[in-house]
């Protein structure tokens, strides 16, 4: 059980590590530039954007704000949104930006160290277990070989063992493949093998070469009578195919396969129900399955930028590594690179330092799209939360109006910016800027790089322009395009997924918001422990320990004596032993004659004195090495001596009988 527990914990740790190192490519491939209206129509035509196609799609209260701003008016791009805005369906999730409130606590250095040690120990134990298993396997092979010296037979058995498939899913797939090929007899065999392997995994049967199908059914009947009946039906059909003379048809296979899969499903039913409950519990408050394609998501924005000629790449590595050379970075093609920090990106001092270094050492641009964060001083701007009502229009600055034309921007209730005099407002409400840019003087790398020596930092009060619903409102889509165009077409989005690669597994889990998933996994492991017990985590077909029992050893030794005609020798040993025990039990001294012993034993056992005397004499002769006479039955004498010992107190050792005879 301890080993199983260890395996379970190790599984959790390894899985969490695996999740940490997983890579997700969020980038969109470069495409020909498409006009904004056309691009929006193409994007929202996808059924993934349910709110544009499903009139009963529920909106969160925050998303309802887009309706007030006229998102439903763009019926060409998003025909159903108007109806969606009208109905009362409401998603239970109030704030999708932070869907999971559960967070693992921050760990101090000692705890982190402890975690690493545990992980290291886990890996070491796993390696140790594998090595030991391998060595055990080797040594057991040696033991088994001593039992069956026929190496050719061994080879055949080993080859057969290698061919045996034990994986349930692969067996089912094989059954399907064989059925597809028209070999229904083999297909039925494979389906039945899958059932047996599953039952074996559940500990209900143990598949052995000497076991018949009836044996399996009887064993299942003992432990799980509920499924024995169904299994019996399957076995009947299988045996008809295996031993009957009728042709096996597709219908026959389908019937067996359906019953087998039914049984397999039933076996997993409890687990699935539990899994469902756990999933439901974890998903409570998230009625929608795809946040990215909701009005608050960003899938449409990324697709839109892609159609507008941008190369968008979602950053997974930590921002602290932004200065490292990354092969798949969009900057690799030599175009200007632009980093957009979305609210989901968590930036500490280290990250900001790295960002500053990054932007000051190349032809780059930084976009900060809102977020509840304190901006460092070198940005020169500050985001002030929720001070503007959404009724206040966002207006373009004079220069932007001149460059881009008269464009309308509408966003829901928004944050505002506080900026330094050296920054320039691009979009503003009445009271304060909504989007402003500032140019930082770049640290020149070489003498030729002096044409444009400053890099742009664009700060937006929030990230509303980066939401799907925003694209459908007023000229937001065009404005977003214009705002980003000056920074270059290669964009890296730093958001929720950024920095999932972290310094320790718990940090990864925390950043990836995988806490609930990990707890579910732990619950699953617990369920497996309960259902499968100690077998969980062990190889299904561990090599059984084959060790010769003592009785078998003695039997083998006896056989060797018999084959070597060593009955006389055996009689000598047994006779000496029996004589000593009999003297001891009859309380006779060693110097008493054999006839005295015979009389005492005969009195004790009621046997004729002559018979006892004959046995004792034969035993004495045998022990002295006197050759046997023709027709001597030494083995029978051994048996008789044993019976004599039994009658006087058993064949065991020192058991004196009270009383002197």
């Amino acid at each position, binding site marked *: 059980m301890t080993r199983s527990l260890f395996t379970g914990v190790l599984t959790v740790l390894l899985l969490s590590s695996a999740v940490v190192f997983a890579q997700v490519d969020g980038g969109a491939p470069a495409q020909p530039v498409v006009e904004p209206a056309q691009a929006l129509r193409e994007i929202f035509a996808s059924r993934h954007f349910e709110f544009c196609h499903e009139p009963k799609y529920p909106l969160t209260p925050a998303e309802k704000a887009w309706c007030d701003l006229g998102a439903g008016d763009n019926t060409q791009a998003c025909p159903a949104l108007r109806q969606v805005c009208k109905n009362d369906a409401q998603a239970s999730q109030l704030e999708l930006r932070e869907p999971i409130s559960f967070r693992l606590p921050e760990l101090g250095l000692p705890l982190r160290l402890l975690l690493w040690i545990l992980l290291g120990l886990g890996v070491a134990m796993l390696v140790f277990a594998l090595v030991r298993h391998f060595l055990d396997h080797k040594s057991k092979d040696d033991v088994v070989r001593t039992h069956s010296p026929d190496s050719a037979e061994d080879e055949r058995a080993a080859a057969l063992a290698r061919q045996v498939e034990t994986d349930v899913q692969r067996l089912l797939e094989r059954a399907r493949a064989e059925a597809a090929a028209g070999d229904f007899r083999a297909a039925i065999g494979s389906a039945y093998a899958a059932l047996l392997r599953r039952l074996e995994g559940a500990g209900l049967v143990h598949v052995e*070469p000497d*076991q*018949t199908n*009836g*044996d399996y059914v009887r064993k299942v009947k003992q432990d799980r009578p509920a499924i024995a009946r169904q299994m019996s039906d399957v076995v009947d059909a299988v*045996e008809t195919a295996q*031993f*009957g003379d009728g042709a096996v048809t597709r219908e026959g296979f389908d019937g067996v396969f359906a019953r087998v899969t039914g049984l397999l499903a039933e076996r997993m039913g409890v687990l699935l129900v539990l899994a469902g409950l756990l999933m439901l519990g974890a998903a409570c408050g998230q009625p929608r399955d795809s946040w990215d394609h909701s009005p608050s998501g960003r899938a449409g924005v990324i697709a839109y930028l892609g159609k507008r000629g941008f190369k968008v790449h979602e950053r997974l590595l930590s921002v602290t590594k932004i200065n490292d050379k990354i092969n798949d970075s969009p900057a690799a093609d030599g175009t200007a690179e632009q980093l957009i920090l979305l609210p989901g990106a968590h930036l500490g001092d280290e990250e900001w330092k790295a960002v500053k270094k990054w932007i000051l050492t190349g032809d780059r641009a930084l976009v900060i799209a809102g977020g509840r964060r304190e901006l460092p001083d070198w940005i020169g701007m500050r985001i002030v939360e929720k001070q503007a009502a959404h009724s206040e229009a966002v207006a373009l600055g004079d220069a932007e109006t001149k460059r881009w034309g008269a464009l309308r921007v509408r966003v829901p209730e928004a944050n505002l910016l506080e900026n330094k005099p050296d920054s320039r407002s691009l979009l503003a409400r009445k009271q304060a800027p909504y989007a402003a840019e500032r140019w930082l003087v770049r640290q020149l790398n070489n003498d030729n790089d002096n044409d444009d020596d400053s890099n742009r930092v664009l700060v937006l009060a929030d990230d509303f322009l980066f939401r799907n619903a925003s694209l459908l409102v007023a000229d937001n889509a065009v404005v977003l395009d214009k705002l980003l165009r000056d920074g270059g077409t290669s964009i890296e989005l730093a958001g929720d997924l950024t920095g999932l690669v972290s310094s320790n597994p718990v940090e990864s889990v925390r950043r990836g918001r995988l806490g609930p998933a990990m707890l579910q996994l732990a619950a699953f492991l617990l369920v497996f422990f309960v259902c499968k017990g100690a077998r969980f985590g062990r190889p299904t077909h561990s090599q059984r320990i084959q060790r010769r029992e003592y009785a078998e050893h003695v039997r083998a030794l006896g*056989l060797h004596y018999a084959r070597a005609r060593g009955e006389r020798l055996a009689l000598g040993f047994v006779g000496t032993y029996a004589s000593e025990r009999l003297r001891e039990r009859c309380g006779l001294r060693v110097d008493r004659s054999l006839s005295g012993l015979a009389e005492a034993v005969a009195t004790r056992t009621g046997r004729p004195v002559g018979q006892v005397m004959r046995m004792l004499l034969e035993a004495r002769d045998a022990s002295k090495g006197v050759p046997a006479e023709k027709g001597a039955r030494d083995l029978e004498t051994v048996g008789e001596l044993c019976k004599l010992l039994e009658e006087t107190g058993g064949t065991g050792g020192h058991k004196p009988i009270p009383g002197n005879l």
Partner: protein
Amino acid sequence: MDTNQFQATFDTIRREIERALVGQTDLIEHALIALLARGHVLLEGAPGLGKTLLVRVLGQVLACDCRRIQFTPDLMPSDVIGGNVFNQQRGAFDFLKGPVFTQLLLADEINRAPAKTQSALLEAMQERQVTVDGVTRPLPEPFLVMATQNPIESQGTYPLPEAQLDRFMFKLSVQSPSHDVETAILRNHLAGFDAQALDRLNLARVITPAGLLDMQNHARRLRVDEGIVSYIADIVCRTRAHRSLYYGASPRASIALLHGAQARAASRGRDFVIPDDVKALAPAVIRHRVGLQPDAEIEGMSTDDCVAEILRDVRVPETIAA
């Protein structure tokens, strides 16, 4: 007759017998299988367990002629098979049929008769005929010998020779009833059951001897897969090389196992034999056809242990195991 009819008839016969003989399901089933496979049965068990009753009930339900011979040390072969008696009126010898001329023969305590008398049954059991004074006379069909022997007493008994034992298809141990079965037997008797008056039970005559022959023929026609044939051969051959056996089973054992498996398969409504049929009958077929090594006997092993060991070593056909 088809397989379904066979199974239905078999079940009906069994149910009728169980009305009179309580708690001996396995014994009844094996006896019926032996009958349908044209074999004979050697019953070993303490007195009073219903061996004689079984034969009488069988005779009633199967509408067969039924006789009993009590074997004693002074029983002569002519007391079993009959003999020629001089008819003074005709001035010639008339053959006086012995009790072996029946369809169901109960040879009670067969090991009490000397080997000479026991051997009088050899030809009858194997050839289903009797030869007296050079004249061969066929026995009625169907013909089933059920012999009993008492395992407790050894004084004044003559162990059956190997050749005689080999003639028996099955050797069955009649088990003592459990507490529940014992109680049921007592209740039956309280309700008026009398083993000497089976008529009162109104046992149905389920089948005629001719119907029984049909069933025997049907069982012989059942399909036996090549793997099953090989499985039977494997089992029997291993008895000849087993370390604890000094002689193994004869080919007659293989044949008995084959036909027994066919009858068992038919009784279960199948028209083909499966490994389970063979495995279930192997101990009953083999246990009396092999001889234990003396050392194995000293160790307390039995032939059943050897058969179980052999069955553990033999690979079942079509198994998925490695």
